[in-house]
């Protein structure tokens, strides 16, 4: 999915005005997930868990080089092959090279945001390889040729009716089929895909450096099959996904599940430890782990943004976000949307590319409370905003107005005068003519000021 973030304001407006069903579907689903997350946090000492997870990830990120070397050595000792991809192009080339070496004609995939980030599917298809997304939500979107709109629930923006229509059309299901029937129909198609696939491609929720273990959480069982049935398993893992020790994994699996879906742990946890031990044993013949940077080391050295690399992609910040709920993820224009997208995208793509996402937030702070690794998203948004102002990426009128405010507010007599003039002399009418406030006043009634200011009341004496 290539980035096209610049027209966020337009796309969010279109989503809200022209696709009310998206807002209904997204709000309904995210509110439900958020409630489950809150309940699941309430069952444990979530504050303590989150502080612990934050500390583990901070330790990891400040020793990332060492742990990457350790992970590579352990993976190789387990019989897995390790590849390093600096950018998206290198990641694609490695996969394509492996596919051609193994004469791959058909691929099954587990849900992976990283493969979206590096635009893997189009590259495979261009090479004449059949690609099957096997996560139900991803499968729906593949049929529709749409990118995911949420990092955990990729088709969260779709209504049941839309899926019923799609499946009736493409899989000849009953147009009124219930979710179970629809899932059964998809499973029928995907079962054949699993059996015929030459390669399984997944992401990785975690990579334990100590043991060289790739850990994957899911609820549908499709990842279990993707990692075990085809001859070759390829896992693309972002370099920030490491964990130092196996003992850390237990906590992270549980915390991530609670944050993402409110479960105490996902229905399936796959620990990929390397290829089948001997011919005839279960498991793939070859396991390849591609460690992908694609901008992450740039984020790591950024004064503020590095904290976003603690992200475990649980989606809790999206679910709780009142901004995300109004539009869903597509309005954001790239694979990572919602609060985490607004702080990560400027780091991965460059701030210029990611404007105006740092401003697509009311700074309400709900995301920080939800985040299992305590990423201070509001603070990071402010840091990006500051950089945007310094680089002149915001409208000059806005900068001038705020500089003017500072000049006035540090001169009390001037401030008092401006206040009187501003609100008394028909500011409401003037506001409609201001370029910035024009839209505001279309959507809201402008307030009328108090008949007398507080200063006047104070001078006259308050009874």
């Amino acid at each position: 999915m290539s980035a096209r973030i610049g027209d966020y304001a337009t796309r969010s407006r279109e989503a809200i005005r022209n696709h009310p069903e998206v807002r209904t579907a997204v709000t309904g689903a995210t509110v439900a997930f958020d409630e489950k997350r809150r309940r699941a946090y309430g069952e444990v000492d979530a504050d303590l868990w989150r502080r612990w997870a934050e500390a583990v990830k901070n330790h990891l990120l400040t020793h990332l080089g060492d742990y990457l070397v350790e992970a590579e050595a352990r993976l190789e000792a387990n019989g897995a092959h390790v590849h390093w991809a600096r950018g998206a192009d290198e990641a694609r080339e490695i996969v394509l090279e492996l596919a051609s070496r193994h004469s791959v004609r058909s691929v099954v995939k587990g849900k992976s945001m990283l493969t979206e980030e590096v635009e893997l599917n189009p590259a495979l298809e261009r090479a004449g390889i059949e690609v099957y997304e096997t996560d139900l939500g991803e499968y729906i979107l593949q049929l529709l040729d749409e990118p995911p709109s949420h990092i955990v629930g990729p088709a969260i923006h779709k209504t049941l009716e839309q899926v019923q229509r799609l499946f009736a059309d493409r899989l000849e299901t009953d147009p009124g089929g219930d979710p179970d029937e629809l899932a059964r129909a998809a499973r029928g198609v995907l079962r054949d895909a699993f059996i015929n696939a030459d390669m399984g491609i997944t992401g990785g929720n975690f990579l334990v450096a100590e043991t060289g273990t790739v850990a994957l959480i899911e609820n549908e069982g499709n990842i279990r099959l993707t990692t075990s049935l085809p001859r070759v398993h390829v896992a693309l893992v972002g370099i920030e996904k490491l964990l130092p020790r196996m003992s850390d994994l237990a906590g992270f699996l549980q915390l991530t599940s609670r944050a993402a879906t409110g479960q105490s742990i996902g229905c399936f946890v796959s620990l990929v430890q390397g290829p089948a031990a001997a011919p005839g044993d279960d498991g793939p013949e070859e396991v390849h782990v591609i460690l992908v940077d694609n901008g992450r080391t740039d984020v790591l050295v950024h004064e503020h943004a590095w904290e976003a690399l603690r992200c475990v992609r649980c989606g809790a910040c999206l679910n709780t976000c009142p901004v995300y709920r109004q539009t869903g993820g597509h309005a954001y224009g790239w694979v990572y949307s919602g609060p985490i997208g607004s702080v990560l995208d400027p780091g991965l793509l460059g701030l210029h590319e990611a404007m105006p996402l740092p401003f697509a937030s009311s700074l309400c702070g709900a995301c920080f409370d939800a985040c299992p690794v305590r990423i201070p998203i509001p603070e990071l948004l402010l840091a990006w905003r500051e950089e945007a102002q310094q680089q002149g990426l915001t409208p000059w009128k806005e900068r001038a107005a705020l500089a003017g405010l500072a000049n006035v507010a540090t001169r009390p007599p001037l401030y008092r005068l401006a206040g009187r003039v501003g609100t008394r002399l028909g500011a409401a009418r003037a506001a409609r003519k201001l370029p910035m406030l024009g839209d505001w006043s279309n959507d809201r009634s402008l307030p009328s000021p108090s008949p007398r200011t507080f200063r006047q009341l104070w001078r006259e004496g308050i009874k």
Partner: protein
Amino acid sequence: MKVALFVTCLADHYFAEAAADTVRLLRHLGCEVTFPDAQTCCGQPAYNAGMSREAARMAHHTMDVFADCEAVVLPSGSCATMVKRFYPRLAASNPAVQAAALADRTFELGEFIVRRLGVTRLGDGLAGRRVALHQGCHALRELRLETEPAALLEGAGAEVVPWAASDECCGFGGLFSVKMTDVSAAMADRKLDTLPRVDCVVSGDGGCILHLDGRSRIRGCGVKFVHLATALWRAVDEGVGDGMAERDHGGRHGRGNG
């Protein structure tokens, strides 16, 4: 106790009666209220826009104005958060000690009454009222005033009706509502669409009220909004019987504007 009122820009001009009610309430609670005349804007508009140099200038001005005050009270959770939580951050490279000291002495109105004065029962002037509480984001998540405003309202006899979106952002966010006006309006709609039947909505933040009320009026929702300060003064001043149910922010403003 001597308390300095930091009225905030919005309250000065749009919620003047709520600010006056703040004074009445504080006096009723035995405080001597002062109003340092040199006070201006807390600087939050600039801070939220990422203009921290400008915000720091305004912060330093405010720190000077309130330097000698025993306690500073604001009828706004958002501006109180600016002083308490963001001044120390801004001042990190400057006079950090002064910022931290002011932060410790600064309170949002409800916070001051409950945490500093230890009062939750103000009077029963709200008996029989059904109110919904809009929890402002900063008061809730920065100042962690999770129970205080509701406790004060309930202590005054009001029924605080559960509201699924009570703690959800209304979509104001200052500059946000100007820059992302459609999303901001949709956020207000979600608040209004989930609102239970109540006599009025109470909030400790004028910005949220202006935004929600503006949206409510253009949609013809007929919801009444009351500033927390006014609601709490009602609790004390129960003799004023016309009640807040008729306090329509949209109409001609009577006492307790907002």
